[in-house]
C-alpha cells in the first residue's frame, strides 16, 4: 500500500481490524471518538499505530506526540496525512 494513496476508508478499515470486535461491528468512521465510541485503551492505540505503520509505510516515530494526543478517528487520519 502506498501512503500517498491511503483513503480515509482504508484507514478506518485498518482501525476496525485492530479494535475489539464488538466495537468494530458498528463500523468505524472519522467522527468517532477513539475511547468513548471504540473503547481504545493504551495497548490498542499502540496496536493501531504499529499496524498503520506496517500497512501504510508512514513514519510513526516522527509523530508519536500527535498519536498520543489523538482523540478521534479523524485525528488519526490527520496524522497519517501529515506523515
Amino acid at each position: 500500500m502506498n501512503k500517498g494513496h491511503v483513503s480515509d476508508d482504508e484507514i478506518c478499515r485498518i482501525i476496525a481490524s485492530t479494535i475489539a470486535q464488538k466495537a468494530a461491528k458498528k463500523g468505524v468512521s472519522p467522527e468517532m471518538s477513539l475511547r468513548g465510541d471504540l473503547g481504545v485503551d493504551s495497548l490498542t492505540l499502540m496496536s493501531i499505530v504499529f499496524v498503520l505503520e506496517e500497512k501504510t509505510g508512514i513514519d510513526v516515530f516522527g509523530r508519536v506526540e500527535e498519536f498520543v494526543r489523538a482523540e478521534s478517528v479523524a485525528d488519526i487520519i490527520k496524522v497519517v496525512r501529515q506523515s
Partner: protein
Amino acid sequence: MSDVPKIIDFHSHIASGMCFPQSFQGGVVDNMTVALESHGLPVTREKVARMHAGTLTDPLCDELVVQMDEAGIAESVLLLPDFTYALKDSTHTIEELVEHHKKVVERHPGRFRVFVGVDPRWGADGLALFEKAIVDYRFDGMKLYPPCGYRLSDDMLYPYYEICAQYSLPVLSHIGATSPVLDFEIAQPIYVDKAARDFPGIDFVLAHGSVHYPDEVAMLCNNRPNIYVDVSGYEAFGTAALNTLFRRGINHKILFGTDWPVFRLQGRQKSLVEKLDKEGAFPESMTDADRDLFFYKNAARLLGKNKLKSAEAAAAL
C-alpha cells in the same frame, strides 16, 4: 456535584523522563512489548519505548493544567517518588527533582501540591532534604515507594514520620506491583499497619488500593482510623472493582486519583473522569455527599490538616 471545578486529583506525577529512570521505563516497556507481540503485531521494543516516551512530554505541567481545566480538576497532588537510590541510571538527583517540583508549583500557583519522597537509606542528608522540602518549600506530604526496597514500617522511616506527625502531613505509598525492575513482594499493604498504629496523627494513603490487594486495603481502611486508599489504576482494570469498593462502607476513606501520565494513552483527564459515570463506577446507593467525599472532600480534609500552612494562613489574617 456542582459544576464548579473542585475535584482534587490525589495521585499524579510530572510527565517527564527525568522523574522515571530509564530502567524503570524499560521494565514497563518490556511488559507492553510482550503483550503486543503476543497479538502478532509488527512491534519492536525500541518502537514501543518511543511510543511510551511520547507520554512523558510535559515537564512543566502546562499540558496537565489544560487537561485539569477541561476535567474540572482544581488541584492535583504531584507525587515525587525517589527512585534514585535503588535505580542508579536516574538522570537527575533527588535534590534536582525536588527543585524541579518547586519550580512547577511556582509556575502554576494554586494548582499543585507536592508529596516528596526521599529514600530512607540516604541517611542524614536525605532527612535534611526532606525537612527542607516540607518546611522551606511547603510541600504537603510524603511519597513512599516500597518496591525500591523498604517496608512501610521500617525503622529507617520513623524519623520521617516524626516530621510528618509534627506538621500533620499525610504519607502516600505505592502498593503492589510496578515496573518489573523493582521488588513486588515488599509492597504489600499490611506493612503499613505498625506505622499507622505508632503514628495515629499521620494519615496513610495506600495508592491503587482498588486494584491491588483490594480486600486487604479495605480491611485496613475499615479498621485503622488513619488509613486511606486512592483509586488510581482504575483506568486499566475497569470500574467494576471501584463499584465494589464504594459498597464497603469506607467512602469517607476513598480518594480520587488518576496517576497522570501513566494512563495518558487511555485518553485525556476529562475522559478519565467521565469514564467513572459512563462505566458504572458509582453504585445506585451512593449518595451525592459520598461522591463529594470521593472527588474532593476527603482530599481537602487530609490536606487541610497541614500545620505549617494553617499557621501561615492564620498569620496572614
